[in-house]
């Protein structure tokens, strides 16, 4: 049932629009969203003006022969509009509402929100330019993109918008940390945080020393990636001890870049360490 309503409305509008009329209706071909304007009418007597567009529908009683005034907030959704004047006869016209010239907001999509350091073109930024009414600004605009990494280094790129969209690709910095990614246009800016995280451990080295109650204390040196960044805390480091056909393992999360644990101290045991696919050194425990 509801699907028939637009059809009936269209038929009604079409019928009205095709009726020849004495009245005249002259809208400007393009109206900027959010601007006040007026249109002249001819004839005399009472009539009703219907204006139908995307997200807007206006019905207004008018006196023919007088100007019809539109306030600044009457028409603010950009798009194609249909105006119909019905009185003793009907007349219709069509016009466009275009976005405001002034950009008011940027919708900024920065992807990914988290990536490893030193990735060329690893970060993409896409902006959608909108006016104050949320209309997409279709005319070309120059958008400035700036990526500031944790060490203060910045990358600057400019991109011209096309059909309301501008985009760039940026490199991730060699140093880990939160990077501020900002898009700017005519004093309007939007900022996103991109977390630049260390890569896989570059190497692992552990030391062993006797601990209390017949156990051996194992501790890694600070674990870093190949750019010298500390590998994030929580990364799992696996210690494995093999002795006399028995295996002891423990998965330890890095804390302050160091993994530390205790395993049984068996003389002659072989102890190895690894994180992901990176193997560290091996220790043969002699009991001292």
């Amino acid at each position, binding site marked *: 049932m509801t699907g028939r309503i637009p059809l009936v409305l269209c038929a009604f509008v079409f019928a009205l629009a095709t009726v020849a009329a004495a009245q005249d209706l002259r809208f400007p071909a393009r109206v900027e969203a959010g601007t006040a304007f007026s249109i002249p009418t001819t004839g005399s007597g009472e009539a009703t003006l219907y204006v139908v567009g995307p997200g807007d529908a206006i019905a207004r009683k008018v006196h023919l022969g007088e100007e019809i005034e539109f306030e600044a907030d009457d028409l603010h959704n950009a798009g194609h509009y249909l105006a119909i004047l019905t009185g003793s006869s009907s007349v219709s016209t069509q016009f466009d509402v275009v976005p405001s010239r002034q950009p008011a907001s940027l919708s900024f999509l920065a992807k990914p929100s988290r990536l490893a350091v030193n990735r060329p073109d690893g970060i993409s930024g896409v902006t959608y330019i909108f006016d104050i009414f949320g209309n997409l600004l279709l005319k070309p605009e120059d958008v400035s993109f700036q990526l500031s990494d944790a060490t203060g280094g910045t990358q600057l790129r400019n991109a011209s918008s096309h059909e309301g969209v501008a985009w760039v690709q940026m490199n991730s910095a060699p140093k880990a940390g939160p990077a501020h990614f900002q898009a700017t246009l005519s004093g309007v800016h939007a900022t996103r945080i991109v977390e630049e995280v260390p890569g896989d451990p570059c190497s692992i080295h552990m030391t062993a020393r006797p601990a209390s109650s017949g156990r051996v204390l194992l501790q890694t040196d600070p674990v870093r990636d190949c750019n010298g960044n500390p590998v994030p805390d*929580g990364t*799992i480091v696996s210690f494995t001890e093999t002795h006399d056909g028995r295996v*002891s393992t*423990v998965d330890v999360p890095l804390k302050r870049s160091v993994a530390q644990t205790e*395993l049984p101290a068996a003389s002659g045991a072989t102890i190895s360490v690894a994180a992901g696919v990176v193997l560290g050194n091996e220790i043969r425990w002699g009991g001292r």
Partner: protein
Amino acid sequence: MSANFMSDDQQSANPEFVEQKPRRTGTGILFALILFALTAALIAIGTIWPNQEDSGVAEPRGRVVISASSPQVAVNDLLQQIARRDWHAAYELLANKGEFSESEFRNDIIGEYGSLRSYATLNQFDVQSVHASEDQAQMRAHMIWASVVGTFEDSRDLRVVKNGRRWEVSWPLVKEARVPPQVIPVNYLRWDVIYRGPEDDWGAQDVEAPHVRIVAMHPVDRADEVILMGEILNEDVIPAFVTVKASLLDSKGRVIGTEDAFDKISHVLLPKQVSPFRIDFHNTRLSQVDSIRMQPSSNLVPASADPVIGIESQKLNPLPNASLSGQLVNQSGQVVNVAHVIGTFYDGGGQIVWVADQYPSRALLPGTPVPFQITLPADISNKVKTYRAVTTTYISSRIQ
């Protein structure tokens, strides 16, 4: 014994049919006498040499026999009381009550720290006689407990002594380890997450889900089921809650079945941590399967890097009791109520041949080893060359 397969109609219609009355002969009387004598002999044998083995199904509403007339009855009565969780009644049946208190007895059976045992019920038991004399006997009680994660078994060698006319069980109390009061400093590492809010602009990015990857997958055909086994890696720098779902597709792309790993996986993975997974498809043959669609998923969740559990003295045990055994050692300061051990077993080529798990029934106290044993099928155990075990932990204070 004979049988007449002709109906009454057939009989009446058959002119040659002659009704025969049963004949009483001396054979029937003889047969009855033999049967009577045999029954009497069996009763006498059973009375003089009673069965030394017993088994039972725990009956929570079972009748209490106070005066046990034999070691078997004494053990049965005790285990029935344990099944009813009537600790006082069970304690009263013991011969060595003076050696420990009722609460120590209860803690020995169900644990003190809210472990798997605390919520399990004794489902079934077998009692076997190991040795018996006039006034004491050695019995072996094999108990099967039912818990939310399946059954687990427990065996106790019980000494049963005769006290007057009554047999009583001397309970071999195993005192649960206690950790002396102390302060254990822990550098606590956890992740908290702030998600985007409803008022945020549609372009405002949310925190991304962790990046996870299936690094191995191997389907096997076994009896009437297809088993998918594999490993999943959290390759991100943040913790992930992972699930693995799989769909079996036939040659026309139709879905035969969809299952997930449920508890045969470690769901919370810290950065660079690998978990095995196993997905069982019942009543399916691998020959029906043309392709497999794997669907790993991950969510960013607040997580903690503790506790750290060492898996020590792992050893592959050969047939007939093929298994991986070892000890879990809680290296942190928190009591772990329930631990879960998942073992991945590889052949000589490094391919996964089996994934199995076990829930130790005892809580993990700091620094206190708790044994575990993961059973391997006999046909698989011959193929296993290497293995890897991981643990997951459940701490009740975090759930509340």
